[in-house]
């Protein structure tokens, strides 16, 4: 019996075996040493029909509590934002999602042009002249920034703000450890980086100073001051940035950042349990030939038509092999496309309006918490802020599920000094009623 995905029939098989000149398909596997051949069937469940499988998986999916069933105030790196309906419609076109890396530009102009547009959009948002075709995600892009800076400056230390996402900090440590790059972490001053400590740590050996903007606690770091610290000893200035926030905030490029990375999940990509999302990587022209990942460039054909190709590939693993600047060979093309569509649908004014609605809603929520008697930390915020509670945040969150809320992130899980502190995200999707009800419920549980 054949399978619906497998068209080779018994008759086909016989004709093909005749051409090959053998009697049995197993002869094609005779070079596998007898003693290690797998005999019998794999111990996995038998194939399921489409209907039963869909039912089973739908049932499992419904075990999750999500932003579709509950009002979510959880962010901490992954956000609940408006996704224009056109996004899924376009990325569902199979000419996009069933394509591979555009090695043959003549039949891949659609993908190549879309990436070129993505590069332009990121360059516009970050305020830096070039951007690549995407990275795995924001945190790994930031980490690659650290190793790239070490290569570019021939220095072996990076100074990282203690206000970056704790999981991002872990990723940076994993990436740099392998290449013997030292990571030193600057202390916090409330919910922002302690600039004095940062200045003490940054010295002649520092390849880069790395900060997040807005930072993990939702606070806006003083990039103007940090730029001076970063460049004082000829290190690079690397900023990991929420691309929605910087449509409204002064972009890091204008503050003199050399590398700006981040995640475009905020534009058109669902949370989907943390992946795949889509990292971006922008830099100064000086760093162009050291950039990790793929780049698409403009050129022309014999008739002078404008066209696009993968370019500067000499940096990459398939040509430079062990001398490559990074081992990245794939990208997040489909998610970059989703983000491009969302950014284009929102457009020049829509992104700013969406960003501003985040700030306005978050500010409203902050004031509502203050009025309800909560202590709120942090001064200037984008769409996240910290609230001090009297009880364990994880326990309160368990209670909140019963009321239809997904509470904020439990900062006590990563920071001793923030035990009983909740990081609350309020996006443009939260209504006044939801915010008011959330503040009220949290007040009730807080006792």
């Amino acid at each position: 019996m054949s399978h619906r995905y497998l068209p080779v029939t018994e008759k086909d098989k016989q004709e093909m075996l005749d051409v090959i000149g053998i009697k049995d398909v197993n002869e094609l596997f005779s070079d596998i040493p007898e003693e290690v051949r797998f005999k019998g069937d794999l111990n996995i469940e038998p194939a399921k029909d489409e209907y039963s499988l869909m039912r089973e998986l739908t049932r499992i999916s419904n075990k999750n509590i999500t932003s579709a069933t509950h009002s979510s105030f959880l962010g901490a790196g992954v956000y609940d934002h408006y996704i224009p309906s056109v996004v899924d419609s376009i990325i569902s076109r199979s000419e996009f999602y069933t394509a591979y890396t555009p090695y043959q530009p003549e039949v891949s102009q659609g993908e190549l042009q879309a990436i070129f547009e993505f590069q332009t959009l990121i360059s516009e948002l970050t305020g830096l002249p070039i951007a690549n075709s995407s990275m795995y995600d924001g945190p790994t892009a930031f980490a690659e920034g650290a190793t790239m800076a070490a290569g570019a400056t021939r220095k072996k230390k990076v100074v990282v703000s203690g206000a970056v996402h704790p999981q991002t900090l872990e990723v940076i440590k994993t990436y740099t450890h392998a290449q013997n790059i030292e990571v030193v972490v600057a202390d916090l001053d409330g919910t922002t980086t302690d600039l004095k400590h940062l200045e003490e740590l940054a010295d002649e050996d520092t390849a880069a100073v790395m900060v997040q903007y807005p930072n993990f606690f939702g606070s806006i770091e003083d990039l103007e001051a940090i730029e001076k610290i970063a460049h004082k000893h000829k290190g690079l200035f690397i900023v990991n940035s929420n691309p929605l926030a910087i449509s409204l905030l002064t972009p890091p490029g204008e503050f003199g950042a050399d590398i700006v990375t981040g995640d475009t999940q905020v534009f058109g990509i669902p949370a989907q349990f943390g992946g795949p999302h889509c990292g971006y990587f922008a830099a100064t022209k000086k760093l162009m030939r050291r950039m990790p990942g793929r780049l698409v460039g403009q050129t022309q054909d014999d008739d002078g038509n404008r066209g696009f190709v993968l370019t500067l590939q000499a940096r990459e693993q398939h040509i430079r092999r062990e001398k490559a600047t990074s081992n990245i060979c794939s990208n997040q093309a489909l998610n970059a496309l989703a983000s491009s569509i969302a950014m284009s649908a929102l457009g020049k004014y829509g992104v700013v309006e969406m960003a501003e609605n985040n700030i306005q809603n978050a500010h409203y929520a902050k004031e509502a918490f203050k009025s309800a008697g909560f202590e709120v930390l942090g001064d200037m915020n984008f769409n996240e802020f910290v609230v001090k509670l009297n009880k364990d945040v994880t326990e309160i969150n368990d209670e909140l599920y019963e009321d239809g809320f997904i509470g904020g992130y439990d900062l006590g899980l990563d920071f001793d000094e923030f035990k009983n502190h909740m990081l609350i995200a309020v996006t443009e999707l939260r209504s006044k009623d939801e915010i008011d009800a959330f503040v009220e419920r949290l007040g009730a549980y807080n006792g």
Partner: protein
Amino acid sequence: MAKKGSSPLIFERSIEDRYAYSLPKLDIEKQDLSNLLDDKFIRKEKAELPEISELDLIRHYTELSNKNWGIDTGFYPLGSCTMKYNPKINEQVARLTGFATSHPLQNEKAIQGSLEITYRLQESLKEITGMDEISLQSAAGAQGEWTALIMIKAFHEANGDHQRTEVIVPDSAHGTNPASATVAGFKAVTVKSNEDGTVDIEDLKRVVSDKTAAIMLTNPNTLGLFEKDILEIRDIVHGAGGKLYYDGANLNAIMAKVRPGDMGFDAVHLNLHKTFTGPHGGGGPGSGPIGVKADLAEFLPKPHVKKEGDTFKLDNDIPNSVGRVKPYFGNFAIYLRAYTYIKTMGPEGLKKVSEDAVLNANYIMRRLEGAYHLPFNQHCKHEFVLSGVNQKKEGARTLDVAKRLLDYGYHPPTIYFPLNVEEGLMIEPTETESKETLDGFVDALLNIDKEIKEDLDLVLEAPHNTVIGRLDETQAARHPVLRFEREDIVDEKK
């Protein structure tokens, strides 16, 4: 039908005062921004994003999609990439609301569904690879390679073997292997291939030493040949104290036939988007889980998903963990597709996948040998490499053959890889293609061979039927234009 010529960029379609969004209305009293933010943090000039209506946006991207080749468009025999059919049910599953809107930082009780899928996939992949533990955290094959290598590094360091600084890589290997070794802080050392296209055992004995941390092998290798001396290779490398690392790019050829774990490999990475039908998405996202034998398990990235009774748990208690290689739990929506595929195929289906993939490859190889030079004349696995040396003598290079193939409506094979074959054409048909498709492709390549002899210019000037002609890649690299500049519009209007 796609029109010939260039398409305007979305920025060139932008007209002031158009938009394509519908944001929820702000229902609170708006504050003046200057009360909320210090003036130096308020962006002065807006980013130049396009202004376009919804229909025009749809038409823009639809036009682009019509200029793009995907597996649903036609045959895509790109060697080493396993461009098989992407089942539609996978896409439906990935979009189930309960999965798509699940947040990774919730309390365990709120993410039981996602954790259950993660756990179930781990179990299935253990069985398919013959490994003891699986981590799904790596975002892509290359990140999987690197993750496994830093685990191997941690293993040797834990044993006090700090001198193990070298990783052996065959000359035919994917370029990611030496790149990953370097990024993991190792020195990549090349082992040569012999006349049969497999690892030269004598050369391996020469390069292996007490500096060897690991050897990276894909089996079958990039020539599509099974490393039949695998057990001898295992003994040599293990004998020297090194580990065997399996690059899963070619797993499609051997599923249910032989398992990396049973061949002696200590660590593997898988490319879910290849073997298990995660769509390639134009080059990503992918997913690159790793599997390891028990002695490496204590170095796995954190967290690991476990089952206790009927509950799924996140295990962060991995004392010697190499750390986190990616935030959260990996590319969940990709491994959701892989899980769906495995459930769709079952054990018998997966075995037939390998058999048909290998049968299809051998069939085309035998039909093409003669017209095209076959450098390694033995049964291949799921892919094989031809050489265009015969055609080069007539004046056409492999690149020209590839471009002419586009006119016949086929995506060309991988070309000029692996590096140890002159004018290489690396063909991988996969198991989802019918005999009629394979025959059509073979006939096209045989015709092109004829055309080279009869009408060389026709081939050299190809492609003729694509939306755009052959592109000047040298100019692109010499004068990089990597983004659109607004003044370009003005220039064109001049």
